[in-house]
């Protein structure tokens, strides 16, 4: 029990937090971009699985890690294209299309894995961890926090990049306008559909990369259904973060921390809490958090609503 209160325990928790948050950061930041343009994609879970599988299959076949991530991002974008075609061009209900994408993602990756990649034995070589100069020398915290692989570090860039894109470029300005006042954008002579396509494609390729993190930068194997609900968590993160990419980064970390703490507390024999209670913690916390956020103003005005030209 005592070592729970030590700096070492804290540092371990923080390191695990960041690693467990990484796939959620990718997916939720992507979803922020998509939802800012007014498109709600609940198919993140399926998209992440597609990314995880494609990345794994590519690296298994070629041994080339960067190519694996590239393929995962492209596969995510392809899933996004399918989603966008139905949700934006055909103007079908976005929740329905998202549900279909989840089914397709789970079905396709499991089917192809069983048909082509059953015996993958050793798995693939994953992205190696690297020390951040100086920072990794900090006592206690250095090793757990600053000895991660480059994908984990890149989450900072992803969040900052999305922030820059959304709030510091004219593309981002228009993209947000598409989510709030599509009619104005349309009248101004720009294509609402085009911006929404772009937002969905960016969002889904990030989700694909988040999936690829699972197979190429954390575990080294593909397991059917291995996203284990992370895509749904990312959806909750977006709401909790009030559609801000920087917010999504920190809220994802909070979730990562709950995951990490859950695993750590279970390993403490002196704590007699049923493990199911610990596992339910992150989900309970989300609900409580939603009550605390309690806002309606930040929601993109046309979220989930297809745009029809006048």
């Amino acid at each position: 029990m005592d070592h729970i209160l030590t700096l070492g325990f804290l540092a371990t928790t923080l390191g695990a937090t960041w690693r467990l948050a990484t796939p959620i950061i990718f997916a939720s930041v992507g979803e922020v971009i998509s939802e800012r343009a007014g498109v709600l994609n609940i198919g993140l879970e399926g998209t992440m699985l597609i990314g995880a599988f494609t990345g794994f299959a590519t690296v298994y076949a070629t041994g080339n890690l960067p190519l694996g991530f590239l393929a995962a991002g492209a596969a995510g974008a392809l899933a996004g294209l399918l989603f966008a075609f139905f949700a934006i061009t055909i103007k079908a209900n976005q929740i329905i299309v998202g549900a279909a994408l989840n089914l397709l993602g789970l079905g396709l990756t499991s089917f192809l894995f069983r048909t082509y990649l059953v015996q993958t034995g050793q798995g693939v070589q994953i992205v190696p961890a690297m020390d951040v100069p100086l920072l990794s020398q900090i006592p206690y915290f250095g090793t757990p926090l600053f000895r991660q692989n480059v994908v984990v570090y890149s989450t900072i860039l992803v969040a900052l990049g999305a922030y820059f894109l959304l709030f510091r470029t004219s593309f981002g300005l228009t993209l947000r306008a598409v989510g709030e006042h599509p009619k104005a954008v349309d009248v101004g002579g720009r294509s609402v559909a085009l911006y929404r396509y772009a937002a969905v494609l960016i969002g889904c390729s990030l989700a694909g990369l988040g999936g690829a993190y699972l197979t190429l930068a954390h575990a080294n194997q593909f397991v059917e259904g291995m996203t284990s609900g992370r895509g749904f968590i990312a959806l909750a993160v977006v709401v909790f973060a009030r559609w801000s990419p920087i917010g999504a980064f920190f809220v994802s970390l909070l979730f990562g921390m709950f995951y990490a703490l859950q695993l750590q507390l279970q390993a403490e024999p002196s704590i007699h809490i049923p493990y199911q209670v610990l596992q339910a913690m992150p989900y309970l916390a989300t609900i409580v958090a939603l009550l605390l956020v309690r806002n309606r103003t930040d929601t993109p005005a046309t979220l989930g609503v297809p745009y029809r030209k006048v």
Partner: protein
Amino acid sequence: MKKTAISRRSLLASALGLTLAGTIWSGLAHAQDFKMGLLVTGSVAEEGWNRIAYEALKRVEKELGAKISYVELQQNPASFEKAFRDYASQGYQVILGHGFEFQDSAQTVAEEYPDTVFLISSSNVHDGKVIGLNTDSSQPFYLMGAIAAKMGKAAGLIGGMEIPPIKEALEGFVNGAKDASADFKVSQVYLGNFTDATAAKEAAINMIHGGADFVVPDADAAGLGTIQAVREAGPEISTFSIFSDQTEIAPKNILGTYIADYGQGVVRIVKGIKEGTVPTSNVDFGLKDTDVVKFSYNDKAAHPVSEDVRKYVEDVRAKIIAGEIKTRHRQ
């Protein structure tokens, strides 16, 4: 899993034939074939629990010349009875339900199909022709616990879900460790599923940071995440390979391999059934069945198990087989 087109074509032709046979000739036409079916609750493609049953089925096909078929039902208790009935009505002589959860449905269907033998994995049922086949993993895990306690400082165990085969295995490990060294610390984590390799890896990393130098998974495919964590942690951290030989994944860290050659055991039982002898009680495979439950050492590990620890292990192995040491159900 992929076969040539020709064989798949003929498989289908026979399946169509069977569908018809079921309606017209009530299975008479195919009475002479010996057929075995398998029900699993997950994917046979993944390393671990379901794969063991699949391998066993393939062994029955190869060694006994049986026609085989399997079905992956997901975790859906409502579908078990129908699948049993599908096979039984097609004249399958033996059906293996791979998990204790198949027990109820097998007992129900068995009343209607008195000629079919229902084998249930991880169960101790014996009710007419419904026969439990349990592999007592607590025995090899007891040996692993003993090794960990003799060689290490603390151990961590990562289980998939809290179900009997896993709970008992972890219990065996703890007992083995405590008997070897009374104050050896063992911590446990359940993932709540068999798919989250990411969580399995993080749980292992956390245990290693907490001072464990032995981290052992029992979580099917998710367990690969644990092996990965141990490998990355370097040669000072050790683990064991569970159910199938994964030594090549972490050759420096895996000190030994527990292989449940369930196929051997199943072939033995099914051979008996084919020749007309149905077991008269439930079957419990343990260390006494040296052809089924195997535990071997990896001499190429960074710190292979030393001679005197091996001697201790041989000693307790003999006592377990003789029934002098109880590895599970201690209270």
